[in-house]
């Protein structure tokens, strides 16, 4: 049952969330739902990132008494992905916010949240 350990489960879940997000993004016609799809996609990526950085049985990457300084590299989970995730979350937030702003503006212009109403530019 090696495969059903924590990081693999979270990895699979992460990928599933990514796919669900993509599915939502591609199939929903409501702008808000599309953005939710994107948020799921983003979150999925974050989960994947964290699970990649996880080291089995590792502890939080804080150098305190719980960790032997000499063996820190093996005892803690990799701190970098966690740092990256933080940044990624911030950026994701920014993007989501911007998307919502866009939707707001679009709704003000056309009073519609239907994505098919915004196909004027094409070809």
């Amino acid at each position, binding site marked *: 049952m090696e495969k059903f350990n924590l990081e693999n489960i979270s990895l699979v879940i992460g990928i599933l969330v*990514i796919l669900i997000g*993509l599915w939502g*993004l*591609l*199939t929903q016609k409501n*702008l808000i739902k*599309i953005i939710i799809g*994107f948020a799921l*996609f*983003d979150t999925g*990526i974050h989960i*994947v*990132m964290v699970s*990649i*950085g996880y080291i089995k049985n590792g502890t939080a990457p804080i150098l305190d008494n719980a960790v032997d300084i000499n063996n820190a590299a093996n005892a803690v989970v990799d701190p*970098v*992905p966690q740092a*990256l995730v933080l*940044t*990624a979350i911030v*950026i994701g937030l*920014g*993007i989501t916010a*911007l*998307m919502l*702003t*866009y*939707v707001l*503006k*679009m709704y003000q*212009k*056309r009073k519609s949240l239907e*994505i*098919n109403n*915004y*196909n*004027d*530019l*094409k*070809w």
Partner: protein
Amino acid sequence: MVGPIYIIAVALGTAFSLGFFKKANVKFSFAFMLLAMTFMTFISGQWLYAFLTQQQETIQIFTAGFKPPFSISLQMGFYEAVFLSIINIVGLLSAIYMYDKLKEKGVQMMMVFVLLFMGLNVVVMTRDIFNLFVFLEIASIATAGLIILDKSANAISAGFKYIIATAIISGILLIGIIAVYYYAESLYINDIINSNLSFIKGGAVAVFLILIAIVLELKPFPANGWALDVYEAAHPGIGTIVSAASASAVIFVLTKILPIVGESGYYIIGIIGIITFLGSNLLGLKQNTTNRLLGYSSIGQIGLLLTIIGLTPYLGDKTLFIAFGVLISHALAKAGLFWLSGIINSKNIKGWAAIRRNPHLLVLMGTFIFALVGFPPFPSFFAKWELIMQLANNDKIIWLALILIGSFIEGVYLFRWFGYAIKGENQDLPEFKIQWNKIIPVIIFALGLYAIGYYYSTLTGSAASLNYIPLLFILFLYAIDFLPVYIKNTISIAGIGYYLYTIYPGLEEFNLIFALIFLAGGILTLLAGYTYKGKRQGFYPLVMMMFAGLLGLIEANTTLEFFFAWEIMTIGSYFLIIRGKKSMTHALSYMLFSVGGAYLILAGFGLAHIGQSSYSLDILANVQGYAPIIFTLLAVGFMTKTASIGLHIWLPGAHAEAESDVSPMVSAILLKAGVFGLIVLMLRMGAQSFGSFDIYYALAWIGAITAIMGNMMAAFQEDAKRLLAYSSVGFLGYALFGLALMSHLGWLAAVSLSVIHFMFKTLLFLAIGGVVMRVKTKEMYKMGGLIKKMPFTFISVLMGIIVISGVPPLTGFGGKWILYNAVLDKGWFLPAGAIFFAGIIAFLYCFRLIHTIFLGQLKDEHREVKEAPFWMLLPQYIILGVIMIFSAFPNSLLKPIGEVIMPYFSDGALEWQGQLAVSNFGYWNGELIMYIVGGIFVIVFAWLWFMNRNAQKVKQFNIGYSAERPSLPETTHFAYNFFAPYKKALGFLVSPIISDFWEAVSEGIHAIADKIRRIYDGNAQTYVLHIIAFIVIFYLIAFGGSYGI
């Protein structure tokens, strides 16, 4: 020196502090922002300067005092400096350009603007892959932030598509980055490179994800609908930034990433690149919306860059030179065009006709368009040249062909657009006014293109000998364009004359003959320019450009010089042609055939260069393989200028619609460039065949058919200048035939016919031009009876047509006689029969020309027409004098030409005994014939005069008219459809199969483009789907057969 880190510091600081300014203080904020942008530009420029002039080492900047991978590191090397300079200059000028918009939107927009450029700067400098991601995101968000500030619904929905697409792409990138980190355990690019991820099972996928994400940022075809919408809808200033600055940054990122992928990545980049280049340009064909068209072009150019990067393994150390040449041309030209589009304010490209209200704007636009297509003297020209040479050297023929095809398609829509700008219909044009802040950036970039172009030519080893003096002269003429015609005309004539004088001693052989045709012809035709009054704006620089090109051809020793001159000539003649009335479509087809032909020549030179170290034209003499193909490519390329059958459809319209004194230039002189090219080619390459199929025999047939078709079409024209134009087509058919004979007499015929054609076609075009100037129509049937009004012009035309028809005693017969002997020598009888058939058909149009214009019935409106102006007549009579001398003393023309040909073909040369020429078959004494014919003529005339000296002069309606009398000159002048029975009998031969063919090709391609572009249905979700499909497809391609990219 100011450290690069200050770029970030300044940008961030400015962005934050801008927040403190009140909205009211917008001007101050703008100045503050501008200061920051200037400072950023200054830093990058300073570093660039240091790298260029001093032995500056590449430096690494470590943040937080740690070495990587424990900190984010930035790198400032030469390339970084270059890219940063480009980006920051674009940024600075964009800021100036967008002053209105920034002022209107206030500090928020300025903040976003500065942040965007900070993002791009860091993206270029950073060596940390996650940092790269972060700042790419910042740039994307900032871009979207800029777009959202626009009011229009379209811009906002485009921005929404943009942000959705970039978000997905960055998601992919993020996954890639984390996966790479998983395998490489570092985010520092240098470490990642060292860990050779491509050879690890999952690592390859990780790297692939990063690579594909970066590529997707570059908007590859077809996953680029989101970007196109932004280009179309957003403010042109934003378009500029996305197209010039962001793309440059991401291209640089790609070059950073590629070492991680390893060698195999190049292949996939190359494929993506070429597909993008071809696909995007193809779809560009159907665009009428300016900014979207620019978008397609941008993406196409980026595709070309990707291709070049992908071809790095073959281009070797030239890659940088080539890629940078393309990039800088693209960045400057595209920025310039986007900015111009903001000034003109026309959504539709047809509305660009408004631009010609300000000719200087037109010059700017032309600069950008020609730079994009890769004309000299712009960097893209040299880059393209190097690219083709290297590809040929590495035997990448398919790549070479695809790149040329893509470039050609790009030329099609760009020149169509330019054509609308110069000559489009003059209705409902948008008003525009030029603001200083908007025009200055454009001017700076245009000048930059020239400067960098010049700089580039010094970098190209073989371009060092390029002659820029004529180009300086052109510049001088442009500078004095405000002066009246007669001053500029005199200066131009003096310039040409002086140049001829200086180079004359160095000329020999064919160069001398053609130099005389080009330059003496130039002087003669320019004499007619004194006819014009006023300023004739823009005319003289263009004329000189054409002549500079022609001169360059003569002086060229290397293939590059030759090609450079060829392109310069093309530009000049294109503008001359498009100056004419209703010349838009003709100029376009001229340009397209010229560009197509030029690419064939380029390909030919490229193939000829295989295995050669020098670029001398003499490499053609010992090519290392592909000889028949090289020959065919070059010959067809040159034949686009001689307008051989199949490639002739540009000619009639182009020549017919040109101004009176331009027609002789483009018809009598320019076409000879093709002949000159063929001579240069044939002298060096000699006999060529595909297996047992003799190419020259095919050329002879092409010449013969061209002659028949040209002459027959001439006979069926109603338009006098069109008739003359087709006559040129036919006559150059003879020349081609003569050259193809590859014998002394054949060449003697071809060269002497070229000289003669130059003379009589100048004569006729000037004469007819004079008539057209007076009667204001070109339709021959609307004229008639002008002999009594314009007797001097009539004499010119009379002599001209006697020469054309080859009737003794005038000099045209000499050509016919030599051709006969040449044919008998060679033994190609069937094409010869066709050639002589064509010669007789020439009678038809000759007669028609003189009859319908000068004879027959004078029209009401023309009863007070005056003789053509003196300055039109003067060159005609100079030429007439020369023709008479050559007629009476043929050896004064033929003997020198014969001596020139002698070293190459000595068999069957003519023997001269005084004016008696003796060949293997016959003999001919031009002087004696002149005397005999003259003598008989005088005697008979004296007899007639004696018998009928007091004949009653009557007027035009005094004709025996079946007891009735004519009532109107229009109904009595038999002129329209003059050869109706002939048309009935043989008209089917000239049914427009060829133009139909080209039209079908063109329409077919446009239809395909129209079908394909339907994939961009305007829905963000579709675009995301494209992105995902793109990834999947290229994943399959990359990992399809084997493991690893």
